[in-house]
């Protein structure tokens, strides 16, 4: 059927036209913090935590699809919409917390750059400043188009995890069974781990970034279908990579001797008995993910803040035209990288703290989103259907419960001295 074939080809073309925002967001979701959480889960509990990935994927799809739909229909960023519908004071509050949350995430990512390259015997006092300068130049001096291309290419490097997962030769049968068999153990540490897995998977910056990226890409309401497919595909890919990280650590560390690991680089080292390549790939993956997130986070933060508060923004503007945008961007990188180079900086505490702030902010963001997407004046016929609303509010409630629990646990850990 030539007409069916043609239609199929048209759809494919549209799909690649909208491809990018969701995929990049979902990939960056597996940043240094995420990789650590998945590694830890695998190293300590083996294949057991794999079942959480399915519900995580669904939650991720629901929240990201709402953002991309809002971006496509309104042509406005999330912080724009929050500002227009909820006023300046609320926007300001959200932005302050967002900056704090993203800064702590950024610190974790610079830590990821440092520790992954230390596996190659490179001193952090060289790699972190170099990484910071690279990030700055890449984003400020590159055009959006070329930057997006570089980002999409960086996504390919995530395949490193899949390969290192295979190299470890894990117990596939067990992995498959545990992926679909929920296991609840009433053990404080196990529950903490489950919550951490879900909690790190949906971060507030993602919604802001994805919606802006959809708008920047020029996706319109007509392309919602393709855009939705992109989101679903991307979220599944993210979970696939998370799956391989868990599996790699389960196969390499847990099966030898279950233990806690301190950071993601230690997980890479744990893969050493399975050959130089497994470690190498895991470390390269970690470095790539950290650098990638270190580009996106400050960029996304500066965009959201400037959009919401009405300052000029955009990498295509000159420094003089958008001073606040560039200063914020620069400051985030300088502080994020500077912290890592400060001797005796309580890094673990900082990462726990970042989970607390994420946990505090996310409920608000999700509630605002669900309220916004149900406004007929904004979304016209593309508001949530009743079924979707049930799922959305359910996810919101679940996410809120889990992140608050994670925040509470993190606070406890901080009190105990991290």
């Amino acid at each position, binding site marked *: 059927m030539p007409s069916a074939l043609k239609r199929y080809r048209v759809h494919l073309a549209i799909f690649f036209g909208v491809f990018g925002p969701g995929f990049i967001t979902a990939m960056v979701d597996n940043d240094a913090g995420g990789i650590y959480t998945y590694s830890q889960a695998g190293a300590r509990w083996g294949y057991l935590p794999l079942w959480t990935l399915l519900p995580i994927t669904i939650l991720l799809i629901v929240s990201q699809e709402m953002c991309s739909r809002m971006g496509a*229909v309104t*042509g406005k960023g999330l912080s724009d919409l929050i*500002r*227009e519908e909820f006023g*300046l*004071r609320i926007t300001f509050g959200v932005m302050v917390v967002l900056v704090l949350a993203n800064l702590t995430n950024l610190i974790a990512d610079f830590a990821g750059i440092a520790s992954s390259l230390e596996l190659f015997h490179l001193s952090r006092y060289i790699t972190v400043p170099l990484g910071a300068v690279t990030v700055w130049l890449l984003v400020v001096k590159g055009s959006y188009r070329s930057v997006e291309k570089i980002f999409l290419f960086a996504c390919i490097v995530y395949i490193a995890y899949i390969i290192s997962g295979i190299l470890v030769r894990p117990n596939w049968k067990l992995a498959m069974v545990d992926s679909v068999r929920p296991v609840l153990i009433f053990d404080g540490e196990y529950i903490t781990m489950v919550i951490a897995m879900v909690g790190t998977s949906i971060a507030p910056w993602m919604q802001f970034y994805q919606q802006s990226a959809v708008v920047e890409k*020029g996706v*319109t*309401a007509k392309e919602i279908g393709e855009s939705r497919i992109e989101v679903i595909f991307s979220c599944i890919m993210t979970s696939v990579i998370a799956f391989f990280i868990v599996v790699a650590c389960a196969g390499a560390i847990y099966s030898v001797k279950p233990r806690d690991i301190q950071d993601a680089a230690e997980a890479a080292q744990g893969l050493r008995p399975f050959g130089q390549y497994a470690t190498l790939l895991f470390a390269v993956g970690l470095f790539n993910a950290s650098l990638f997130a270190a580009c996106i986070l400050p960029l996304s933060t500066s965009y959201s803040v400037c959009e919401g508060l*009405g300052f000029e923004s955009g990498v295509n503007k000159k420094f003089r035209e958008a001073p606040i945008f560039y200063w914020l961007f620069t400051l985030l990188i300088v502080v994020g990288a500077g912290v890592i180079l400060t001797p005796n900086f309580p890094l673990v505490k900082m990462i726990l703290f970042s989970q607390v702030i994420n946990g505090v902010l996310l409920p608000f963001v999700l509630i605002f989103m669900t309220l916004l997407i149900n406004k007929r004046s904004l979304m016209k016929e593309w508001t949530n259907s009743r079924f979707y609303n049930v799922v959305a509010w359910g996810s919101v409630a679940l996410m809120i419960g889990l992140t608050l629990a994670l925040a509470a646990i993190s606070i406890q850990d901080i009190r105990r001295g991290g």
Partner: protein
Amino acid sequence: MLFLTELLGLKVFDLKGRRIGVVKDAALVPLVDPVRIDRYLVGGGWTWLTVRHDQIRSISLDGIHLRDENLTPYHADEYMLRMARDLLDQQVIDAQGRKVVRVNDLTFEILHEPAGDVLWVLDVDIGLRSIFRRLMQGVLPPRWIRRLQGPIGPNSIRWEFCNILEPDPQRRLRLNMSNRLLEEMHPADLADIVEELSHEDREAIFENIDSEVAADTLTEIEPGIQASILESLETEKAADIVEEMAPDEAADVLAGLEEETSAEILQEMEHAPKSEVRELLEFDEDTAGGMMNTEYVALPNDATVADAMRVLKDHEELLETLNTLFLIDAEERLTGVVPLARLFLHGGATPLTTLATDTLIDTLVDEQQDRVTELFDKYNLLALPVVDQNRKLAGVITADDIISVLRQK
């Protein structure tokens, strides 16, 4: 001077000095007066009341005192532009600064007229100072806020340079909103602004501005957005705009649309530009044929400088960008290229053939884009004639086409 953040929440007193309520919003009625606040909406008890501007005796930071207390209950009125509801936190276009800004606050001037005080809208406030005011509004007394904001530099836009965005066409009429400010801007600046707006606002602008301005602006907009704008417009309006565009630009835009939409627009277009656009649409976008336009001046081989001048007078609309004349023989085959500037150095009787360039550089309609840009670079061209298989002149590619191609890479 009074800020909107101060006006909102200002106490309103009746003739005996009793407090009636506080100001909830203020509204202009642009059909009556585009700068004077016409009505104040006062909330106190269960309903909001409307205070007309001529019912007020005095306005100050201490409150509003009335001189006429026959107030009517507030009812929604389509002719009102409400400051807090319609402007605060929304985007407006700064026509002078040529950018999209978000309204943080408004500045009014208090005019002491004999009948009583009136407010005039002076500025739209953007930037840090007004953000500070918004955050402190209601937290600190207004006079403290005024003192504390001193060190922060002001940043505002004069009210007369603000273009408000209103997607609803009915309401635009009732609010007497013109597009004069946008139409007076350079199309390239307007294009940058349009790219930053939401789909709805883009559509509203293109529906309302003059077709010629719309065409010039659309040409400057990036291709993806061009297509979405044209598809959102009524076919008739879209056709009006495309008609005003240069044929090559029109063909490029239409090529970016879905086949069905572009066919509808072509159908709706007037005859003359339509056939040219249709011909251009036949060519592959990445070839010389897809890049060229058909607006050129060609003269017969035996023409003189005087003939050329006569023809140019008839094509005055082309002069702004024209830099080359073409010579053709009886079969319309290209025989020579004359740089326009050479005409000025020679008398009217001079045959154009003597002014033609020594080497004739041209290209075929199906030549690849890369090859064409190479020719421009190699021979430092401003314009390159495009010929078909029979060497008949088909069109011309100009340097600005090449710049767009290179920019898009």
